[in-house]
């Protein structure tokens, strides 16, 4: 509907107004008794000018009726959505949407299906509808102009491509909950909606789920890679493989080494091994005594891509990269416990420094280039000028404090999109109680219990800060896998600029690079754009900085929720806290006011001025006869 009313109840004024107008005309037509000399001339006018026969409104009545309608329509907030209804179309372009499947002899991806759904949806909209197009990976991003015609939106759809990362669909939708300009928000995703109430039809959100849980969506993914027991020259490369499916699968994992041929970097096969996976199984495959001088590419091969009995629908999680370099930077531990007591020496690629609380207060972080600091059971008066992890911060003052101790801490909420919590098995997380933290407003809750947050994370002044309300250490590796993964994720997030990590999570920004540095993805097809400092696409990147030797940064994206195509997860649809407001309802009110003014002027001109003028003219014409000498 191109028209609408802001205050429909004002329409009640229509019958009242019309009744009042009719009453006024009838009342006006009651007539005043006036004695005249003789009525014999008036008798001739009786037929023409009688008012008691039947209510026959004059033209002026209709003019004033129009005027009344214009005024009431204005009061009712009549609007014509000049730009049509404003609709938001949100497309999930996360990694899982690149999953391919065969249908009618053609290979299509979920994203292709999403586009088809989007086109069907656009075709069903009124032609005056204005559409805003959004994608949600890695973050909510508007595509094209804020108000597009349907044709433009379709053209933009063709330009969209699926991303390599997870989506932030829930976060994106929660932002729409506060935006009143959209009358409806259409979401096309492979996730299932969870409606806040039973009546989904009353919500402004319309969700189209691309549901496909068939066997063809069984997917094997590389879920983790690491190098262990390394001595800077040789080490053991371990890869975790997970089968998200219903049937056992087999395949081969190849490890390829990057070799510099002078002009370019080529890969040569270093190792390979076959594997067999049961449904839901995660298997670790270790390749021992690999030289750590070169970066490696891990690739699942021998997975039927087409025409076979089984094909892996998601190719992007079949590849991973890893690069092991000598650590040149260090992490400083501030507190009573030493890095050895914290079990951190197991992480050999990091140089660990130790400062006591007193030393820190006296000299600060002396180590140049320290990429991060761990404040163990201690909180400094001011936030340090480096990335920092605060473990069980003690004291009642400071930027971060521990408040209530919860002995039997049971997790109640967590931010699944934060890299800190990637691959953390929450059910295996054993905390032995936790403190509820209270931090600055820019720190977001990442992990919470009923009583409040126990993990906070945030960025301020170009540095990253993490607060833990429970003890992460000692780092025991497999003996406490959930805590260890959490610790590794924490180090990964706190030191993302370190080129010397084994790999970084996709989406990481290389903030230390200047404008003269170049970042080139080695596994890019020719013609693809050079990556910016934000590494959104998993790849092995060659980073060249002036005055330094070229370095490698391996970028991977491991996310079980994206790789598991059979259970793509769910999205909680937020209740909309604002009601739809048309974009410019006043516009028509102004026009109505103009119409009313014109009608008023017409009324005045035709029914007041013109009769006066004509009567005056006639009187002048007859003045020589009436009362004069005839």
């Amino acid at each position: 509907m191109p028209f609408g009313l802001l205050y429909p109840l004002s329409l009640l004024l229509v019958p009242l107004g019309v009744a009042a107008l009719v009453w006024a005309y009838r009342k006006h037509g009651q007539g005043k008794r006036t004695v005249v000399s003789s009525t014999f001339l008036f008798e001739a006018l009786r037929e023409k000018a009688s008012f008691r026969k039947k209510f026959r409104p004059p033209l002026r009545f209709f003019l004033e009726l129009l005027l009344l309608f214009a005024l009431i329509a204005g009061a009712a907030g009549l609007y014509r959505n000049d730009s049509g209804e404003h609709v938001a179309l949100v497309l999930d372009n996360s990694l899982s949407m690149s999953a391919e499947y065969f249908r009618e002899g053609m290979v299509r991806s979920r994203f292709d299906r999403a586009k088809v759904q989007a086109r069907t949806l656009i075709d069903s909209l009124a032609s005056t509808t204005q559409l805003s197009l959004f994608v949600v990976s890695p973050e909510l991003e508007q595509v094209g102009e804020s108000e597009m015609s349907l044709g433009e939106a379709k053209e933009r759809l063709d330009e969209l491509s699926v991303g390599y990362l997870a989506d932030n669909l829930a976060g994106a939708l929660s932002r729409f909950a506060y935006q009143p300009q959209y009358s409806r928000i259409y979401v096309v995703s492979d996730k299932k909606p969870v409606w806040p109430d039973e009546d989904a039809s009353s919500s402004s959100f319309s969700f189209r789920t691309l549901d496909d849980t068939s066997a063809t969506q069984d997917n094997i993914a590389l879920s983790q890679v690491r190098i262990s027991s390394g001595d800077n020259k040789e080490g053991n490369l371990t890869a975790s493989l997970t089968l998200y499916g219903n049937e056992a699968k087999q395949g081969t994992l190849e490890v390829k080494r990057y070799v510099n041929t002078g002009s370019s970097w080529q890969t040569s096969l270093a190792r390979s091994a076959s594997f067999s996976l049961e449904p839901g199984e995660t298997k670790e495959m270790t390749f021992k005594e690999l030289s750590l001088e070169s970066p490696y590419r891990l690739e699942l091969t021998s997975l039927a891509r087409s025409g076979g009995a089984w094909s892996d629908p998601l190719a992007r999680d079949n590849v991973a990269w890893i690069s092991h370099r000598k650590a040149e930077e260090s992490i400083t531990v501030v507190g009573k416990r030493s890095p050895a007591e914290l079990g951190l020496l197991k992480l050999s690629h990091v140089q660990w420094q130790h400062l006591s609380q007193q030393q820190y207060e006296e000299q600060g972080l002396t180590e140049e280039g320290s990429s991060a600091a761990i404040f163990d059971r201690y909180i400094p008066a001011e936030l340090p000028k480096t990335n920092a992890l605060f473990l069980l911060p003690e004291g009642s003052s400071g930027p971060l404090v521990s408040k209530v101790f919860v002995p039997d801490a049971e997790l109640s909420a967590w931010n699944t999109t934060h890299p800190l919590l990637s691959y953390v098995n929450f059910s295996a997380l054993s905390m032995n109680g936790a403190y509820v933290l209270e931090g600055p407003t820019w720190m977001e809750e990442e992990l919470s219990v009923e009583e409040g947050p126990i993990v906070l994370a945030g960025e301020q002044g170009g540095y990253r800060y993490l607060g833990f309300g429970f003890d992460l250490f000692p780092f025991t590796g497999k003996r406490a896998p959930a805590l260890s993964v959490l610790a590794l994720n924490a180090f990964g997030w706190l030191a993302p600029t370190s080129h010397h990590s084994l790999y970084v999570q996709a989406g990481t920004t290389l903030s230390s690079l200047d404008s003269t540095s170049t970042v080139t993805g080695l596994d890019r097809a020719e013609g693809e754009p050079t990556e910016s400092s934000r590494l959104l696409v998993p790849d092995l990147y060659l980073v060249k900085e002036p005055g330094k030797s070229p370095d490698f940064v391996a970028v991977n994206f491991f996310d079980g929720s994206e790789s598991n195509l059979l259970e793509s997860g769910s999205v909680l649809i937020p209740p909309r806290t604002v009601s739809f407001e048309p974009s410019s309802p006043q516009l028509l009110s102004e026009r109505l006011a103009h119409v009313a003014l014109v009608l008023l002027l017409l009324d005045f001109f035709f029914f007041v001025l013109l009769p006066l003028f004509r009567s005056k003219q006639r009187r002048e014409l007859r003045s020589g006869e009436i009362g004069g000498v005839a």
Partner: protein
Amino acid sequence: MLPQTFTPRYLRQLELLKLRTQRTFLGTRQGGHLSLKRGHGIEFSDYRKYELGDNPRHIDWGVYGRSERLYVKRFQEEQDLPVLIVLDNTLSMHAPEQGQKWSMARDLCLSLAYVALMQHDTVRLCVPGSFMSPSYYGGRAIHQLSRDLEELSPADDKDFLLGIRQGLSAFRFPGVAIFLSDFLMPLENVETMMNMLRAKNLDITALQVLGRSDVEPLRDTQDAIVVDSETDAEVELRFDASIRDEYEHLLHEHNDTLRTFLTQAGITYAQVVADEDLATFMLENLMKKGLLQ
């Protein structure tokens, strides 16, 4: 007591005026108008053969010298002019302008009567349905006439024709008749009245006195129930601009028809609206119309 409009200056102006007639009439006494009666006078009329008993002083000796026949000169006598003023005193003359219309008619009546009386004419006032005056002579009689008019109350229009008939029967000599009315009546009624006067061989002048509300009725009212002042007949009207124009057209047409009839009947016609200046109308308009000189 004369109305306030009769200032000394206005009265002096009226004294200079004289009723003019299209014909000559026999008077009853010596006056200022040439009469049909031959005899003593200033204005030569004709010759007649001398007869025994004629006054020898009237013999034209010049004619006798040329023709040796005795002729006597005859002169038109100047006698008074019988003037009958018929004044419409029905309710229509009193409504609706708070007497303004009646005042104008009354003042016109007094003014014309004063002109006649100052010329030694005989004036009789006929107010159909309510009053028939005796003959007034001499200028002083204007006060009596004024008093008689003051005592009048609006008459019933039922006796209007009868009143005219009675007035005419008392008016024995032909002369001048001045009819003062709004003539807002069907033309047939006007014709009837005028024919009665014409039958009396009178030199008739019809003065139509209209009120401003007769010309521009219901100026501040759009819808009205107009009530006839005489018959109480009601007409419900939506008096909008078009109907107002229609009314003006009807009035114009009515007046045109009235004028045509009166002109064809040899009756002088003049029209005055009650809010006009009396002196201007008397001294200018009626002189132009030929009623006064």
